[in-house]
């Protein structure tokens, strides 16, 4: 069952709570369609294309410049969509672990799985850059020096991160299966 729970101008938080024999708890942060940025990219590609046509008309030939411009415009748009993230998800699989997913506009999905026995704790972390501060949900993972970001690209407000973080805590800390001593 999908519920749209929280949103702001830039991001949308959704939760999919599947019950039954194999319950999954999925939390999505969806990037709202940034029309201004997409418009600028398409405008730039169009200007490049128009410039190429103008040069060709000027020279009177349909030459390499036109083909190269077509190619670079297409590459620009493709690379933009290729790197553009549509949404990032955290799938909490009880007793097994957490899967982190990044969905791109091109259809590509990048997944990574962290087993439950490796996760020490999920934490809301404050990050500081030279120009701003923002919150992120991170996982403290056994054996790793660096924090693992649950949402690598999106930087939503903390009120959108708290629900997914709280469910991580409940399912990973409170309901964490106790591993017998001889299996450790």
């Amino acid at each position, binding site marked *: 069952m999908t519920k749209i729970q929280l949103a702001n101008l830039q991001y949308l938080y959704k939760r999919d709570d599947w019950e039954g024999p194999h319950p999954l708890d999925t939390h999505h942060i969806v990037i709202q369609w940034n029309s201004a940025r997409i418009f600028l990219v398409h405008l730039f590609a169009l200007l490049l294309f128009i410039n190429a046509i103008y040069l060709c008309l000027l020279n009177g030939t349909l030459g390499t410049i036109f083909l190269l411009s077509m190619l670079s415009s297409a590459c620009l748009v493709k690379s933009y969509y290729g790197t553009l993230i549509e949404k990032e998800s955290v799938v909490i699989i009880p007793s097994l672990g957490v899967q982190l997913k990044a969905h791109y506009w091109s259809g590509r999905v990048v997944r990574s799985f962290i087993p439950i026995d490796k996760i020490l704790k999920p934490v809301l972390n404050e990050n500081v850059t030279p*120009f701003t501060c923002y919150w992120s949900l991170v996982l403290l993972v056994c054996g790793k020096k660096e924090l693992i970001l649950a949402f690598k690209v999106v930087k939503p407000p903390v009120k959108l991160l708290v629900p997914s973080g709280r469910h991580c805590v409940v399912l990973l*800390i409170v309901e964490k299966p106790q591993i017998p001593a001889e299996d450790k």
Partner: protein
Amino acid sequence: MGDSKRHRILMVSDFFYPNFGGVENHIYLLSQCLLKLGHKVVVMTHAYGNRSGVRYMTGGLKVYYVPWKPFLLQNTLPTFYGTLPIIRTILIREQISLVHGHQAFSTLCHEALMHARTMGYKVVFTDHSLYGFADVGSIHMNKVLQFTLADVSQAICVSHTSKENTVLRSGLPPEKVYVIPNAVDTAMFKPAAERPSGNEITIVVISRLVYRKGADLLVEVIPEVCRMYPNVRFIVGGDGPKRVRLEEMREKHSLQDRVEMLGAVPHAQVRSVLISGHIFLNSSLTEAFCIAILEAASCGLLTVSTRVGGVPEVLPDDMIVLAEPDPTDMVQAIKKAISILPMIDPQDMHNRMKKLYDWHDVAKRTEIVYDRALKCSNQSLLERLSRYLACGAWAGKLFCLVMIIDFLLWRLLQLWKPAEDIEVVPDIVLSLDEDRGMSQDFQAFNEDHSLR
């Protein structure tokens, strides 16, 4: 806290932990005492190596290590407007009511005070050092100080000499400058249970071995004292470019068994070095205050010091022997100190220091300065520009231009990233504290559920 309002203070300086020094210690200890008084304190400094981001220190003191790399003598690269976005973000998210900058030599402090004034916050500045008037560096530094202090709400100096120096350098009205001396942690600096016994008298020197700390004077004084008094030995703690000169002096006069060089002494071990001596020697050529002699007196040592800057204001006359910064005069002062040493009671000296200097008292006095700063009237940009114009024929116009551009950039930032989009950080309260007024969601999330 009584009737005083709870302040939310942002301390800004390039000098903070993990660096050790007078300014760093002052900011840390003052912040801890202000936290105990119930105020909220956040510190902002530049990143130190890998130490970047948000850290929490004792008492819940939050520190922002902003990833701006230092470029000269631990100072952030001055960009004028580069730090405006991050300072604005921190001021809004922490709901700061007042900005307190430390040290005239800190570029981050100057920029933070400038941006804070542009955004309408009240600012307080503390000057920790004395500066000259004649050399090129001092002239430029004083001009920058004039710019920053032209519009400051209140200023604090650590001694009356420092106040005089700051007022002359910056042109600030004296009634805006408060004198609040530094203090010493007397709980940490206690005399030894038993004073070092025997015929030997130990003179301790702990300072950075640099020119302005009078290391060259030590090179002249130590051999002369060793010649006059066969039962005197020296312990020299500290490091710096002048260490080589002291090592050479030791070799030249064959004083290896009478002059012990310890090298850099971590602050946590300073007390153990002090209590191994009877007399503390300070040979600084300039000092606004000198916390080192406070620490020595708190450990029960008789102090011999150069009569420079604010040093004469620090200790009572029976705890210190002053001398001119001249080798002959210093030797005479050490001679006098040795003669009055049997009359010194270390425990009595420590008890007197406890009553004279206390960081909680410094915090209460600073709180009064904050109250007065917040009562200052709000002024528009045009009213504030007139103060900058008074800074000089050309400098005044330049300063006005800088402030106008800062104001325009601030307005642009308000359009690009409105204050409503910057999330306010809930206050982190320690579990022992009764006031748990923070957001339940946030607090409940970051606590360890498995320990309940």
